[in-house]
């Protein structure tokens, strides 16, 4: 079977918290929906993440952060992508992000945020709803 144009997603776990269960659940769910998931594991710096996203030519970066470090990491990832001329890579996020902050992050370029209790089906639906090149 010829498989053309797979959706590629980088799942990264920036910051210092070690709770990667959520990230692994998402990686598995995306795999089972036919996507290619690059899983980079714990304690990735924004620089690591952006470099990996470019080398892997992904359509989406999924960031999982539970420690509150997103206030530092989100802007950094957004800026680095801009610096590399790779703003077309979409960022989605999960973990503990306060509801009242979500509109602000959406404006800054985090396309979608999936908090605790989100269904993997919704995440897959969201990604599939975006037209990839």
């Amino acid at each position, binding site marked *: 079977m010829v498989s053309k144009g*797979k959706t590629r997603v980088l799942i990264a776990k920036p910051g210092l918290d070690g709770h990667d269960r959520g990230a692994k659940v998402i990686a598995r769910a995306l795999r089972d929906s036919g996507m290619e998931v*690059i899983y980079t594991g714990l304690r990735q710096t924004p620089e690591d993440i952006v470099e*990996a996203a470019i*080398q892997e030519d992904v359509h989406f970066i999924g960031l999982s952060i539970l420690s509150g470090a997103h206030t530092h990491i989100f802007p950094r990832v957004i800026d680095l992508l801009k610096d590399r*001329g790779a703003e077309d890579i979409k960022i989605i996020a999960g973990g503990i992000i306060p509801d009242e902050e979500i509109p602000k992050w959406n404006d800054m370029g985090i396309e979608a945020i999936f908090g605790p209790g989100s269904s993997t089906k919704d995440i897959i639906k969201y990604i599939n709803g975006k037209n990839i090149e």
Partner: protein
Amino acid sequence: MNKEQFLKKLNESDIRSVARLITLIENEDEIAESILKKVWKNTGNSYIIGVTGPPGAGKSTIVDSLAKHLAESGKSVGILAVDPTSPFSGGAVLGDRLRMSGAQSSGIFIRSVASRGHLGGLAATTRLLINAVELLGNDFTIVETVGAGQGDVEIVQISDTTIVVEVPGLGDEVQAQKAGILEIGDILVVNKSDRPGSDRLAKELQMMLSLGEEKEWKTPIVSTTATSGEGIELLWNEISNHQKYLGKQKFEAKRLEKFKYELENQISQKLFTKKIIEIGDSEITNVSTKILNREIDPFSAVDNIIKE
């Protein structure tokens, strides 16, 4: 971006463009072929090291340490790491990068590749992916296979030096006598050498090699503990030795063999596709039904179709 701009970026070894070309090749996009035609002359300049072995043997960690070692001695490296695609969903979790933080922080280009239904330990497009990576101007390309079974020997068709990674605890000495993956190693590695049974495995492999015919190149066995980097320098020395042993003449002869094999493959694939389209689905169903009902045997059926 138009094609001219894309080509210009590729000639400048722009990482994003090389990564994009890899995607196009993986997708078997027509654009990839037209681009590769243009850049073909600039490819083929890296020494290709293949790393294979069973799942969990430590291939990624060895690749990581080796790549870091090379980078520290001033050599440039690119890595292609293949992981399996699910036969059910077509998706994949590509996790080799997880073990390659050393290479990643040394600025080495790493690309995770899904096998996309191809068997044998690699993706069908691997050779072309190497060519794409070579546009970065790297001295070495390291290709890591899917966690391989005994018969996944395709890596040998790709690499200049093939490394087979084994670990203690997987079977008795008869396993070492079996045909397949152990035969293709130019270098055998016993990884996790801090574990019990590793000395014995090294001895069994040594015994296996000594029972065979005397060969010009004596396959070395290197013990490593990849997580601590132990033995990696020895491994690199053996790769260098193998490279020296090949020299220009054997190296080129080996590569010529590969291109012959590849060319035959390409021809048979193109002819195959052409013929299948020519015959058409209804005729295939028709003849298959006859075979099923024992009206004709499959051998004559094929002969008839090919003669047409």
